[in-house]
């Protein structure tokens, strides 16, 4: 019998990992998220077009479907159909439909616009490309490829959410625990602080801060600035939750036992009070990340978020916030899907982590 793999000999972290691995849904979501982050990291490679270059020849093109069969028969390599223009006589709108007579092969590792991989290595190879227009998710009002914009937008949306949330969690759990455990004036003080901070509706703070930031900051700097400040204000919810939990647990039997056995405060906090909270903390964290991502969409909606030519999912959704879009160009609403997906994945992952982090539960 190998002593090392026996469950009884594994430490907490290894136990957690074992349980996590067994949760297939959680692992699947983790994998999906990993894919998202990789794509975001190497956005230029994955995106067939430049996200900022306006191309007025192909405005409001509906998504082009890939086909394997065309007028010339069956192909192994997928092909994208050519585009046909049609002008509306009254409004002079140009609508695009597929031209079944021509099609272009989709090439992999094709040459496209030049960029610098990771900002260092110049290249112009992209994952997919084609000889003709290939807008798999359609284009927007300036003829920019939606797929490329979504990929580049992922970069901004995914990273900024993480930073803000991590900060929030740190502050929230620390202060919540201190508040619940110590009680007395510390508790009162921290509670007042939380109340004070949470008494401000976020909107006025955002607006005031947006106005106060120097306009010479690049758009990303501005946004990170605002997000950091928001995270400093968003820890209140978590702190309250942790405090509630710690309050309930403070008088629990095993804590009393530990205390009467002579354990010091920090030992009690780390070993007895915090572990049952991990589940909460992780759940709150996974609930907060989507909140951050959705918060970014709200900020962009108010005009305080990412500024052009930078793009993020929030910016894309703000541009889609029009009756004309919903009724005439509904493919521009597609960026809602990765938002939802990422949020769901984070939540499932958080669930899985929560289940795994509580090895004493059934």
């Amino acid at each position: 019998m190998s002593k090392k793999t026996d469950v009884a000999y594994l430490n907490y972290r290894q136990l957690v990992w074992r349980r996590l691995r067994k949760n297939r849904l959680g692992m699947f979501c983790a994998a999906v998220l990993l894919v998202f982050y990789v794509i975001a990291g190497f956005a230029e490679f994955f995106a067939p077009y430049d996200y900022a270059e306006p191309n007025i020849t192909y405005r409001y093109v509906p998504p082009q479907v890939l086909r394997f069969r065309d007028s010339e028969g069956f192909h192994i390599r997928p092909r994208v159909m050519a585009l046909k223009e049609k002008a509306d006589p009254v409004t002079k709108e140009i609508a695009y439909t597929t031209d079944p007579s021509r099609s272009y092969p989709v090439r992999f590792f094709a040459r496209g616009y030049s960029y610098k991989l990771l900002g260092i290595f110049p290249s112009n190879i992209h994952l997919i490309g084609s000889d003709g227009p290939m807008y798999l998710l359609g284009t927007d009002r300036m003829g920019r490829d939606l797929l490329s914009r979504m990929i580049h937008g992922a970069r901004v949306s995914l990273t900024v959410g993480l930073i803000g949330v991590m900060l929030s969690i740190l502050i929230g759990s620390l202060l919540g625990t201190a508040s619940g455990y110590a009680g007395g004036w510390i508790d009162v003080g921290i509670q007042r602080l939380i109340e004070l901070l949470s008494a401000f509706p976020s909107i006025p703070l955002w607006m005031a801060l947006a106005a106060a930031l120097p306009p010479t900051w690049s758009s990303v700097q501005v946004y990170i600035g605002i997000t950091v400040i928001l995270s400093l204000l968003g820890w209140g919810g978590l702190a309250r939750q942790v405090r509630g939990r710690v309050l309930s647990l403070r008088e629990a039997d095993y804590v009393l036992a530990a205390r009467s056995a002579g354990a010091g405060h920090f030992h009690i906090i780390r070993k007895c009070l915090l572990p049952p909270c991990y589940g909460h903390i992780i759940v709150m964290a996974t609930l907060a990340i989507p909140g951050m991502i959705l918060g970014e969409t709200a900020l962009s909606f108010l005009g305080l978020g990412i500024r052009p030519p930078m793009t993020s999912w929030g910016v894309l959704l703000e541009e889609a916030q029009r009756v004309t879009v919903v009724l005439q160009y509904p493919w521009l609403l597609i960026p809602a899907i990765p938002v939802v997906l990422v949020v769901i994945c984070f939540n499932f992952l958080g669930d899985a982590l929560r289940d795994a982090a509580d090895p004493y539960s059934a």
Partner: protein
Amino acid sequence: MTNMIIRRLLLAVPTLIVISMVSFFIIQLAPGDFLTQKIAELEQRYGDASSLARVQELRERYGLDKPVYVQYGKWVWGAIHGNFGESFRYEREVSELIWERIGYTLVLSIGTLIFIYVVSIPLGIYSATHNRSLPDRILMLLCFLGMSMPTFLVALTVIVVVFNTLGIPLFGLFSMQYESAPWSWAKFVDLLKHLWIPVVVMSLNGAGGLVRIMRANMLDVLGEPFVLAARAKGLSERAVVYRHAARIAVNPVISILGMSLPSIVSGETIIAIVLGLPTIGPLLFQSLQDQDMYLAGTLILMTSTLLIIGNLLADIVLAWADPRIRYE
């Protein structure tokens, strides 16, 4: 318990003072004031700069040329007498503007809140007790969908789709014919017909999140030793779940109730703006954009007061529900 309540109420007063001061200063943070904006607007529309002289007069009249603390003092003095100042944009009393909207705001927000809790708590309990079953998984999926929807987009999309397919314009809270008619049963029914879109859209985020939290709490509590003990004692599953486990699991959820009071008043501002509802949220947002100081300051103060009351209520309920922490 009464000690705690009294102590908290006393503490509330300085808190409110600090909040009101800070909110005033924050509104001042943005460069310029309402009048610079008004000038900008006048110029953009009329290309007219000669109204400048009159604006300076207005500035003096509203006291905007005085330092911030003087303006604050004036406002507080008026507030104590029940006069919260005048809105620059609407040119009417702040209290009037708020009073007109507060009815609808409360109806909408309390409706949403009730909807969320009434729906979420039982679903959360059900989901926890039927952990990992198919209904549980479907429910979780729906929750995630609800939580991750960018709600303002949903609001617009729902309205447009409803309008396009059913041909019924469901904007605002009333149809054209009932808007200024006196109250009647028909008007109430009309209100309900319009209410369901905002309430459902507003609850999506909240309900999704709350079901998950409730479920997580229940699962935690169901794993506790005392639950095992209760089961061993022979109590029915129903008793275990509802009388014992749920009461404890509901605690953190209730403390969130306190935190959601500001959302009652600002009423999911963005959605209310998109749906054109006559509530407080859009008013607050516009007053901030306009730097309409007295209006914005009063609204923030109101929100803060509600929050403090909400927290207090939440703590009271917490203490009542969980006897273990009653003695503080």
